[in-house]
């Protein structure tokens, strides 16, 4: 069975994959947004996720081999994907890829830090926009100034609506395109705080070892 699905939030993705497993649908392999399941899962199967980037192909291979050596098969992820999924089919091995609370929590810290890096990357761009006066607060009060068609506001009826509708996308672009950066910062910042909260919560649970 093939399912296409996109997850912005890796915690939600993990929940979904494990929910599918509970329903007997076992993830076999996944690339990007495409997930391949088999419908009769082995009852011993456990699927766990990690979150890591790798500088080189050798680092990635070394990482994969360490998991493979200890009984975990890699089923999703690339060198740059961050999200990595592993499947355990042998009941003799450990049930989790993390054996203590701090290392389990550190996974969420790595996820949170990725979003933070993006937020920090967009802040200088936004400052440049502010300094160059692209931020047009007047547009909120006088949106009609964004329309450049001569005599637009004196037209009536269909003629007016046609010209108005035609120019609206350009007007919105002129007045509000700068908003994309603050919106991106807020959006990515939201993910950062969300994942950082998961990290804090996990880090306070008692260590296993």
């Amino acid at each position, binding site marked *: 069975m093939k399912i296409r699905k996109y997850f912005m939030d890796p915690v939600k993705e993990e929940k979904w994959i494990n929910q599918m497993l509970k329903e007997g649908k076992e993830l076999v392999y996944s690339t990007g947004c495409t997930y391949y399941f088999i419908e009769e899962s082995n009852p011993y199967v456990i699927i*766990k996720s*990690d979150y*890591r980037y790798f500088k080189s192909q*050798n680092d990635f*291979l*070394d*990482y994969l*081999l*360490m*998991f493979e*050596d*200890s009984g*975990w098969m890699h089923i999703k992820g690339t060198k740059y994907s961050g999200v990595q999924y*592993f499947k355990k089919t042998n009941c003799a091995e*450990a049930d*989790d*890829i*993390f*054996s*203590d609370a701090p*290392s*389990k929590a*550190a*996974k969420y810290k790595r996820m949170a830090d990725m979003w933070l890096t993006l937020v920090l990357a967009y802040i200088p761009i936004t400052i440049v926009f502010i300094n160059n006066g692209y931020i047009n607060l007047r547009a909120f009060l006088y949106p009609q100034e964004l329309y450049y068609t001569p005599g637009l506001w004196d037209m009536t009826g269909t003629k007016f609506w046609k010209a108005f509708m035609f120019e609206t996308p350009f007007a919105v672009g002129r007045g509000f395109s700068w908003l994309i950066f603050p919106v991106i910062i807020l959006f990515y910042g939201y993910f950062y705080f969300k994942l950082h909260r998961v990290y804090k919560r996990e880090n306070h649970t008692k260590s296993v*070892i």
Partner: protein
Amino acid sequence: MNLDKYLPLTETTLYILLSLNEPGHGYIVMQKVEELSNGKVRIAAGTMYGALENLTKQNLISILDVGDKRRKVYQITELGKMVLQQETNRLAHIVSVAEKYGYKITEGSDC
């Protein structure tokens, strides 16, 4: 050199450093730690990967340029050995104090 910032070592770190007195890759270290701790300390793959990464960053272990080209082989560094020595002294002191209060190392202790 002040090594106190590295101490005390966690049980996991202690066993990893002890294991790496002989060179080995990740899975070898996992098995060695289990063996040295009489099966008490079992480090899972994700935890071990992070631990080896952190210890390498702290320069307590280093990556050897030999053997298996696909798996990274680690070994304890001179700094790592000094930290381990300091920790051994610290633990020995705790044991000697405990013995003064009548606590003896018992036969068949499981750690």
